[in-house]
């Protein structure tokens, strides 16, 4: 489904180097690739893909293989804080839509990038979008992904930052030929801010978290026995027996309305 957009829309997707959850190998980050996919559907020709980091990284070719003409790289050392460089580059000529993933797959993966960019550039940020429905007359209508498969429609003024959720359309396959033909344009950036706070951190492979034990704080043996054997029953709610079927249905209906599940 192609959203309605105006011709001169400028869309930027910020991409990072991902990490495969089980093999740990570098790959295109899932949410970033979805952001590129969304951008390609909005503006198939003019999408600008930016990476702040090392231009010789082969993962960038995986993004380029999605049908990009070029990937722009702001050269940064691995221990750098990429935010100042991004702010300088994006602030120089503000795009209409900046797209990122919700959380990176490597590094701190705090998810702060879109929010910090939003504060520094002074434009709104929309969290976890699944789809951009339309962009017209300076406004975009987007669908935000909510937990439990729900969607919320939002209207936001251009320019804005959007973080793309895993509920967005899956990214297209990366083609080797297209990836080789695409340009990786490295740009030397004057700003290099080393993230000094991070140097003191200690990073280890994730330890398996202990399972929470069900601690029974029973005073007597009889209590412990009961806790070990009793079925998990609720506090025994209201029981309706002799009312008419209509009254019973009304009671259920009231509960549904009170819980707010009837839409």
């Amino acid at each position, binding site marked *: 489904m192609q959203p309605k957009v105006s011709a001169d829309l400028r869309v930027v997707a910020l991409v990072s180097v991902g990490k495969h959850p089980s093999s740990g190998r570098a790959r295109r980050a899932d949410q970033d690739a979805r952001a590129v996919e969304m951008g390609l559907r909005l503006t198939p020709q003019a999408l600008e893909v930016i990476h702040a980091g090392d231009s010789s990284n082969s993962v960038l070719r995986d993004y380029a293989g999605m049908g990009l003409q070029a990937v722009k790289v702001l050269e940064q050392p691995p221990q750098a804080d990429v935010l100042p460089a991004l702010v300088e580059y994006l602030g120089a000529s503000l795009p209409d839509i900046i797209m990122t993933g919700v959380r990176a797959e490597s590094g701190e993966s705090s998810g702060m990038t879109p929010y910090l960019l939003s504060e520094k550039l002074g434009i*709104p940020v929309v969290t976890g979008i699944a789809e951009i429905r339309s962009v017209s007359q300076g406004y975009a209508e987007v669908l935000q992904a909510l937990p439990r498969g729900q969607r919320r429609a939002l209207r936001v003024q251009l320019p804005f930052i959007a973080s793309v959720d895993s509920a967005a359309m899956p990214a297209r396959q990366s083609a080797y030929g297209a990836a080789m033909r695409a340009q990786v344009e490295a740009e030397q950036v004057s700003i290099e801010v080393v993230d000094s706070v991070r140097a003191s951190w200690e990073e280890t492979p994730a330890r398996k978290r202990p399972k929470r034990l069900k601690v029974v704080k029973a005073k007597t043996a009889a209590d412990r026995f009961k806790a070990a054997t009793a079925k998990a029953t609720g506090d025994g709610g209201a029981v309706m027996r002799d009312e008419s079927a209509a009254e019973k249905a009304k009671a259920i209906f009231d509960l549904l309305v009170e819980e707010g599940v009837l839409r």
Partner: protein
Amino acid sequence: MSDEIIRRDPRAEWIARNRLHPLHAAMVEQGAVEVRGPSGLIRRNPHAVGFIGPNGIKRIDRLNGNSQAAGGSRRSAAKAVELPLHKVESPEYYIAVVPDLVGGRLTAHDKDVLGQAHQLIAALNATGAVNGAVVAITFGDCREDGFDKAGADRLLQFSEAVFDGYAPEARIAALEQVEKSLAPRFWLFPDSVAGGFEVGLRLAARLDERPLTQAWQVGLQTTICRGAGGTSDISRPTERFLLLTPECANPVDETRHEALALDPIDRPDVAPALEDLGQVAVDPNSVALGEAEFILSAGNGIHNWENFHRAAEVLGATEAGSRVVVDDGYLPRFRQVGASGTWVTARVYIAVGISGAVQHLQGIAQCDKVVAVNTDVGCDMVKRAALSVIDDGDEVLSELIELVQKYRQGEVTDAA
């Protein structure tokens, strides 16, 4: 020792043996179970043990008075225990917790975060700080009444209409004011897709703080966070902003707290850049069963299947079923709830004609509100349910369809 030498009294022994003696009653203590006999030996009177029950039969309590707790009577077993009240007068510092309040109620994740706040207070007390209070900050419609048991010493509620729905900017503006007036020692958020993640990061970006996300082991000095998409552990110094994973700490369960409402804080009006156009209708059957919010589940008590499907459609509920109906081919296998099917997490679960096998009850253990429609009042599902209707499932569903259709047309307005 000499005091304990028991001297025999032959005359008393003789009287005790002779039940016809006028002094016999005085010599033998009636009712006492254990008596020191005239010969110096302990005598147990088996007839004095126990008591006469209400039906005239002698009952012997072998639990030494613990029979109440052991479930001797079901009603007294359910009686709530009054936990000790934890009071904080004129707190010197605050720890702010912003719970998700999904559907207006505290989630298990929220309770873990409140528990973590109290752990931090305990750790701070050990270093000499005194009088810390946990303040829970809520937005919009709040239906929770268990803040005292969850561990909120203070409660700050922003309930204006501005905060209803999706209003991150208004919330951040309000939280900025909280920061100015209370200056909490820590800000704790649940790191969840239900909203804690977004609010926490927005506020941290606004206040130019560096948050610790996915924190799962928090100490006063160092904290362990998950990094790199959950594949690494980062051990780093603890900061003011903490976004905590589920099960970061045990929830409060041994104390009650005051949950005193704080004075409302003035907040500036902001012009929101994001306009909430409301939730979009999603086909409920396209949502995965494990994460569906509202489930209509069928069991062996359903005979009119067309009616059931129509009810699910009208209610906007996701369809599910017990093992029996799936085995019989009425529903596909991926709609099965229970031990060998899907473990569901619905907020509202309507079980029509399901009596509640253990395997099925395991599958719905995480559901908040269960409504049972069943003809058998004694079944296990009725014991589990918050509302039970003893009637034929098909009939109740037909009535429910009519009610909801009227509601959609705007006729029933006084509901709830």
